[in-house]
C-alpha cells in the first residue's frame, strides 16, 4: 500500500527510550523485558497483575507517538481504536487474542496474548540445513486456513498485507500464529516517497496500491520460497523469485511443491490460486500424492558411485595425501610411504618409483624431462622422468610440505625452515631465499616477476625477483591455502575461516568472505566465481566481484581438497572419502565417487580422465 505520510519536520525524530523492566502501565501491566522493536514500535513481555496468584503473561505493543500535529494525531488515535476493536472481534486459533488497549502519555498500547515461540526467521537462522518439506507444507496449510478465515471476514474481507517470516510465529506446540496484525496498516509513520511495503515479499500489484487476497497468496508464496531456499528476498531485487528456482537451490523439494509455489508467485494475480482455500487443496493433494504427510521422506539418492566408470586404480603402501600431475603420459604422485610413483596414465601400470626419506604431501612439478618433488626429509628432489633417476637434491632446514612451482628456469618452494627457496632448476643451486615468520605450506604463485605465498604464522607475502619484500599482509591465522590470481586480485583462504581478495600491487584487501570454518583448500576460479573447500564440510561458490555467496554444497566431512573446474563441473574431494562432481553454476550434485579413505589431495583432469589419490592408499582414474 503506498502511503505518503509526512512526518512533521519540527518534531523530534529520535526514538524515545524503551520502557525499563519493572515499569507498570495502567497499574496493571508489569513490564518484564523487551521482546523486539522496529520502526516506531516496541513489543514487551509483560505480566497482567490482575491475576496475582498466577503468572499470566501478555505481550504489550507500544507505539511511540511522534507526530506533533494535533489533527494528524487524532486521526491516528481514531484509526488505532477502530483497528483494535476489529482485532478484538476476531477469533481464530492462529490469531493472537487482544485483551486490552489504552493510551498513555500520547503513546498507544495494545495488550495481546503472549506467544511462547519463535518467528520463522529465527527458526531459519537457528537451523543449519534446509527445513524438511513436510514441515513447511504443514505450516503452509495452517497459514492458508488462517488467511481463509480473514479473507472470508464479513462485511469486508480482511487482507493481511504483510505476510513474511518475521510476522509468523511457531508456538511451542509447533503451530503457526500470525502476529503484528493489522496495526502495521494504521501506524506506519514516515513512509517517505519511495519506500513501499516490505521489500521482498510484496506482490507487484501492491506497488500500484492494490491490496487483495491474491496479494496475501503471493506473499505467502514468497515466504515459502524464502524458507525452502534460505535465500532472503529482501537481499534480492523485487519479484526475482523465478530467477532462483527452488529445486536448483534445494533439490530435496518435490517438483510438485515447487510448481505450487511458482503459481502463487505469478506476476498476474489472476493466474495465482483463486483463493487460499484452493491453495490449501493443492498443497493437500501434493502431500497425499507424494505421501509426504504420511511417511517421512528418505534422503534422495543421486547417481550412485558405481555408475561412474573407474578406468583403473593403483595401490601404494601408505596414504596418498597429495595431488598428482600428468606428464608425458605418466601420472606422477607422491605418497606418504616416501615414494614418488610414476604410473602409465592410460592403464595405471606401474612404471617406476623414486624413494625419498620422508613422507610426501605436495604435488610434483615437471619440466624438460625432470620431475621436482619436496619431501618431509627436508629435501627437494630432482628426478628424471625416464626411469626416475636422481638428477640433484637441494637441502632446506626443515620438512618440505609446500608444492614446488616452476617459473623462469627456477623452482619456488616453501619449507618448514621459515623460508621460501628459489632454486635454479638446471643445477639445483639456490638463487635466493625469502624469510617468513613461520613454516610455508602454501604453494607460491609467481606472476610478473613477483612471488606471492602464505605462511603458517598468518602472514601473506609479496617478494620481487631480487628477493626484496614488496608488501606483507597480516592475516589472523595460518594461510595454508595457495593464492590464485584473477583480474588483478589475489584469492586465498585462511584458517581464520575467511576467503580473502587482495589487490595485487599493494596487498589492499578488496573484500573478504567469512565461511563456517577454517580452510586450507586452494581456491579456483571460473566465470567470475571463486570456488573453495572449507573445514565446515562445504564447498563454496563466491562471486569474485560482488563477494556474495552463489551456492554452497555440504559434504559429510571437512573439505581440505582444492576444487578443480573442468568444462561446466567442479570436482573436489572430501575427508568423507567422496569425490564430488557438481554443476559449477548451481552447485547441484552430478555424481559422487566413494573411496575407502579421506581425500585430502586434489584431482587433476586430462582428456576427460580424472586422477585422484585417497588416504585408502589408492590412486584412481575415473572417466568424467
Amino acid at each position, binding site marked *: 500500500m503506498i502511503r505518503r505520510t509526512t512526518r512533521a519536520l519540527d518534531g523530534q525524530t529520535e526514538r524515545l527510550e524503551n520502557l525499563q523492566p519493572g515499569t507498570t502501565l495502567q497499574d496493571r501491566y508489569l513490564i518484564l523485558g523487551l521482546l523486539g522493536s522496529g520502526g516506531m514500535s516496541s513489543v514487551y513481555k509483560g505480566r497482567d497483575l490482575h491475576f496475582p496468584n498466577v503468572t499470566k503473561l501478555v505481550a504489550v505493543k507500544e507505539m511511540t507517538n511522534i507526530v506533533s500535529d494535533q489533527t494528524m494525531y487524532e486521526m491516528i488515535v481514531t484509526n488505532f481504536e477502530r483497528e483494535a476493536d476489529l482485532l478484538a472481534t476476531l477469533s481464530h486459533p492462529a490469531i493472537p487474542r487482544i485483551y486490552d488497549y489504552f493510551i498513555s502519555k500520547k503513546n498507544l498500547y495494545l495488550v495481546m496474548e503472549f506467544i511462547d515461540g519463535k518467528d520463522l526467521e529465527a527458526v531459519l537462522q537457528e537451523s543449519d540445513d534446509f527445513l524438511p518439506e513436510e514441515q513447511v507444507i504443514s505450516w503452509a496449510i495452517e497459514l492458508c486456513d488462517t488467511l481463509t478465515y480473514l479473507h472470508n471476514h464479513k462485511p469486508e474481507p480482511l487482507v493481511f498485507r504483510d505476510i513474511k517470516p518475521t510476522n509468523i510465529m511457531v508456538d511451542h506446540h509447533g503451530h503457526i500464529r500470525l502476529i503484528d496484525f493489522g496495526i502495521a496498516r494504521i501506524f506506519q509513520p514516515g513512509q517517505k516517497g519511495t*519506500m513501499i511495503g516490505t521489500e521482498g515479499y510484496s506482490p507487484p500489484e501492491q506497488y500500484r496500491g492494490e491490496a487483495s487476497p491474491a496479494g496475501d497468496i503471493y506473499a505467502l508464496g514468497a515466504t515459502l520460497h524464502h524458507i525452502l531456499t534460505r535465500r532472503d528476498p*529482501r537481499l534480492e531485487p523485487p519479484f526475482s523469485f523465478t530467477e532462483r528456482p527452488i529445486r536448483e537451490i534445494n533439490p530435496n523439494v518435490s517438483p510438485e511443491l515447487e510448481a505450487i509455489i511458482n503459481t502463487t508467485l505469478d506476476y498476474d494475480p489472476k493466474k495465482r490460486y483463486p483463493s487460499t482455500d484452493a491453495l490449501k487443496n493443492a498443497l493437500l493433494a501434493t502431500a497425499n500424492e507424494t505421501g509426504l504427510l504420511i511417511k517421512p521422506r528418505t534422503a534422495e539418492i543421486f547417481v550412485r558411485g558405481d555408475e561412474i566408470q573407474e578406468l583403473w586404480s593403483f595401490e601404494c603402501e601408505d596414504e596418498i595425501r597429495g595431488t598428482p600431475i600428468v606428464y608425458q603420459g605418466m601420472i606422477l604422485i607422491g605418497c606418504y610411504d616416501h615414494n614418488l610413483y610414476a604410473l602409465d596414465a592410460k592403464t595405471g601400470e606401474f612404471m617406476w618409483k623414486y624413494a625419498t626419506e620422508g613422507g610426501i604431501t605436495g604435488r610434483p612439478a615437471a619440466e624438460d624431462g625432470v620431475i621436482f618433488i619436496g619431501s618431509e626429509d627436508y629435501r627437494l628432489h630432482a628426478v628424471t622422468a625416464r626411469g626416475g633417476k636422481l638428477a640433484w637434491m637441494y637441502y632446506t632446514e626443515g620438512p618440505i610440505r609446500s608444492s614446488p612451482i616452476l617459473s623462469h628456469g627456477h623452482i619456488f618452494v616453501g619449507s618448514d625452515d621459515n623460508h621460501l627457496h628459489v632454486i635454479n632448476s638446471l643445477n639445483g643451486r639456490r638463487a635466493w631465499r625469502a624469510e617468513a615468520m613461520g613454516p610455508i605450506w602454501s604453494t607460491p604463485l609467481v606472476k610478473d616477476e613477483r612471488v606471492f605465498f602464505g605462511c603458517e604464522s598468518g602472514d601473506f607475502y609479496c617478494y620481487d625477483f631480487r628477493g626484496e619484500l614488496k608488501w606483507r599482509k597480516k592475516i589472523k591465522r595460518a594461510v595454508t591455502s595457495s593464492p590464485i590470481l584473477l583480474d*588483478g586480485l589475489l584469492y586465498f583462504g585462511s584458517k581464520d575461516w575467511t576467503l580473502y581478495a587482495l589487490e595485487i*600491487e599493494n596487498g589492499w584487501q578488496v573484500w573478504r568472505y567469512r565461511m563456517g570454518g577454517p580452510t586450507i583448500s586452494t581456491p579456483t576460479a571460473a566465470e567470475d566465481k571463486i570456488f573453495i573447500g572449507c573445514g565446515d564440510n562445504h564447498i563454496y561458490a563466491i562471486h569474485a566481484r560482488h563477494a556474495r555467496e552463489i551456492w554452497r554444497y555440504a559434504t559429510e566431512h571437512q573439505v581440505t581438497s582444492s576444487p578443480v573446474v573442468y568444462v561446466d563441473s567442479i570436482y573436489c574431494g572430501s575427508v568423507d572419502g567422496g569425490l564430488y562432481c557438481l554443476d559449477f553454476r548451481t552447485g547441484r550434485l552430478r555424481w559422487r565417487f566413494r573411496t575407502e579413505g579421506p581425500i585430502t589431495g586434489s584431482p587433476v583432469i586430462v582428456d576427460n580422465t580424472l586422477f585422484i589419490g585417497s588416504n585408502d592408499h589408492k590412486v584412481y582414474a575415473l572417466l568424467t
Partner: protein
Amino acid sequence: MDFLNRFIKRIFRREEIHPPGSIKTAPLEPSHLEPAWDLDGQQSIVVGAAQSTGIERDHNEDTLFVLVGNSAGQEALPEFGLFLVADGMGGHRAGEIASAISVRTTAHCLTEGTILRLFENEPKEDALPIHDLIRQALEEANRSVVARVPGGGTTLTAALLISGQLTIGHVGDSRAYLIVDGKSEILTRDHSLVERLRELGQLTPEEAASHPQRNVLYRAIGQGANLEVDIISHPVPDGGYLLLCSDGLWGVVPDHEIRRIIYSSGHPQAACDELVRAANAAGGPDNITAVLVGFPPK
C-alpha cells in the same frame, strides 16, 4: 609545511564545484584543460565533472564529489580516486540536503578508511576490506540521512579507485558506466520499480521510459534502517573511461550519444560540459550531473 599545504590543496582542488548555472556549456579550449601527468612514464588519470540544474527544475538536488591523489616516487602511494554522485529527492529542500549529507558522510568515511591511512608513517594492520569500508560508508550515510532529513532520500553511486582496482558502491538509479573500446557497460543496476518491471519483461523499454512511476525507487539512501548496498569490484581498464551520472543525463541522452560525445571531446572535462549541454538541449527535465574519469593505456 608549505609543501604539505600545497599538496593538500592539490588533492582537494577538485572539491570546488561550479555553482549550478555557471557551467560553461560551450566546449572549452583544449589548452585550458589539464593534461594527464607523466609520472615516470606512467600517465595519471584525468577527471572531468559538470553539473546543471537543468531547464525544468528550479533547484538542484544533485551532489557530486571528486578527489584524486597522484603520487610518484620509489615508495609512492597507490593511485587514489574517490568519485561520488548523489541525486536527492523529497520536498522542502530535503532532496538537496539528503544528497549533500550522504556525499559528505560517505567521503568522510572513505577518506578516513583509505587515503588518510596511506599518509600514516606506521600503517596499522587493521585496515578493513574495501567492500566493507564502502558498505559501512553508505550505511553511515543512510543513518545520517534518516536522522537528519525526515522525508528526504537520495541515490548514491560511489566509485573508489585504489591501485588498479575500482570498487563501486551503489544504491538507487544513478549509474556507473565503464566505456572501453567504444563499448559501454553499465556496472550498476537501477533500483527503480519501473526498471525492475522492465527487466521482468512486464514493461517494454518504451513503456518504461514514459511510465508515471519511473522515479519510484525500491532502494534509496534515507529510506529506513536496513539498507542493502550493491558493491562490485572491477580491474582498472587499459585505457577507457568511467562515467558516473544521475538520471538527468542517462534518462535524457541516449547511451550511443553519450559514447559519441565522450570519444569526440578529447578531454573528460570537455566531454562532461558537452554531456550537460546535450541534456539541456534535449529539454533538461531534471538535474544533470556527470563525472568522467579517463584511464591511460597501461
